[in-house]
């Protein structure tokens, strides 16, 4: 029932792994991408660099780094897993 997608390439050492879920994944048309890490890069910069929508996502989209909630301005490093999480609806 979820979109089938090929198993992604493994990230190269030092690359950033970016994940999208649910409505964000469907809107963007992809589930996972790998990016080279540049100095001082943040989730907000990655969002912009990947052209993700909406442009002002901070009000609705949450960020996780290495599977822990983080802020849009948390520092990122090579090897990190960065996820953008649309509004949660569990339980």
């Amino acid at each position, binding site marked *: *029932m*979820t979109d089938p997608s090929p198993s992604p390439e493994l990230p190269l050492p030092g690359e950033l792994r970016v*994940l999208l*879920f*649910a*409505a964000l994944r*469907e809107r963007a048309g992809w589930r996972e991408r790998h990016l080279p890490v540049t100095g001082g890069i943040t989730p907000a910069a990655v969002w912009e660099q990947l052209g993700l929508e909406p442009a002002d996502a901070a009000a*609705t989209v949450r960020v*996780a780094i290495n*599977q*822990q*909630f983080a802020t849009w301005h948390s520092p990122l490093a090579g090897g990190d897993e960065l*996820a953008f*999480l*649309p*509004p*949660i*609806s*569990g*339980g």
Partner: protein
Amino acid sequence: MAAPLLSIALEPGPFQPLQALERWHGQLRHRLGHLPAAESSFVGRVRPHSGAGVPLAALELEHYPGMTEAQLRQLAAAAADNPEVAAVLVRHRIGRVLPGEPIVLVAVAADRRGPAQRCCQELLEALKHEAPFWKREWLLDGSRQWLEGNTPL
């Protein structure tokens, strides 16, 4: 008092809350020697209708493998941070869930009813808002829509 026992699992297929509670009771008897005096529990099931009121074919639950389990454990530990709470059970469905099927089970065993009830309620609210799950409603005609948030209390 020892740290509360946490029993947390995602359920990829249909599960029976009463069977899960029975197994948990067996574990508590084994680990604690007895069942605590107060036990509060909650079961959530899929409604037969969508939020818009039309018949639902299924509810799909997407999650973030790895982070979900870690978050549930962290939320359970935080809600159970009370010396009177002895044990917490969480079961949460993932995948395609049919109307009437259980989605979530939370149970808390404690020495008194107040901490049992509060911990159960707080943990349920926490996992609805702080664990990375996403619900999508599938209607009978095959159309589908991601939900943005939860049913109000």
